[in-house]
């Protein structure tokens, strides 16, 4: 990580998730604020996440947000002029943070949608 050849993929994925977020955030906003008059209840949210298509879209949103946000943070922190070893440590730290956030988000989405056998 951090060596030559890695950054091209990091940037390409940043651009791709950026485009993806435009669509997924718009869908998220519509479903949460415009599809039903008034605020969603917990039961409404659970019903949404019980729909496999919605679940997949929300997991895609989760992964895109986590990657796009953490890679943006990485770019800003790299401006501090880290050493190659420091940059590698940063990459691993952000990867671990992203993995933890993704695991928590996936668990929450599956749990709310009743995919884990309990509501």
């Amino acid at each position: 990580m951090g060596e030559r050849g890695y950054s091209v993929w990091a940037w390409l994925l940043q651009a791709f998730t950026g485009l993806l977020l435009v669509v997924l955030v718009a869908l998220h906003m519509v479903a949460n604020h415009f599809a039903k008059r008034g605020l969603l209840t917990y039961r409404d949210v659970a019903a949404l996440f019980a729909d496999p298509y919605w679940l997949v879209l929300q997991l895609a949103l989760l992964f895109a947000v986590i990657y796009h946000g953490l890679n943006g943070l990485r770019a800003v922190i790299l401006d501090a002029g880290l050493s190659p070893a420091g940059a590698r440590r940063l990459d691993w730290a952000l990867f671990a943070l992203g993995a933890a956030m993704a695991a928590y988000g996936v668990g929450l989405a599956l749990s709310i949608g009743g995919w884990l056998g309990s509501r």
Partner: protein
Amino acid sequence: MAEVELTVRVLRGPARASAAGGRYETYTLRADAGWSLLDVLEALQAGPAPDLMYRHSCHHASCGTCALRVDGRERLACLTTVGQIAAGRLGERTGHGKDYRLPRGARAAVTLEPLRSFPVLGDLAADFAEFFGKLDAVEADLVAARGEEATHFEHCITCGACMSACPIVASDLEYLGPAPLALALRGLQDPTKTGSDARRLAAADQPHGVWRCHHVFECTAACPAGVDPGQALMELRARLVRRRLGWREGARR
């Protein structure tokens, strides 16, 4: 042309690692509105500041030697006129050939500082050695078919204004920066195909290469030669992505 009473604040100091650490000295002189800042600097050197250090060569925006910061903006001293300063029109590329209709007895003040992110040889003279090393890394000098070096096939005059304006260069001195990366693209576009495209791409595709850019586009705003380095960086990224994905490169421009 009207005469202007010009107060010049100059950041002076001996050789040092960056522009910081100098001291401001103030001079006042009467200057013709049509004078360039180089004329002003020469007048100061001939008068109150005989030891004033600054860089210059051609006096007509070809050599890129006289770039400095004028009231915080990267400018070529040769293109900047006293009338332009007095009229507060530093956003214009040059004040030459313009009549700003200054009132009689006009007064103006200006602050001159060396380029940022460069070591300083003394006073306003930036040290370009590291910058030129970065240009070598991307094989910026195009080589003619007969083998002699032929520079200036491109608009970039390697004045360093974009390097000084770029906030990423300021925080990461190893970052190649706008001019070297724009010249890497220029090398790739060279129809005579001189130099090593592989070396140019390898230099651009490294942790301190083209991926560090944050799209601030201060480089494009600062460029006195209309190169648009920011756009060149974006195109260089696109080329690297296409190459990595194994897509065929389109017709060379």
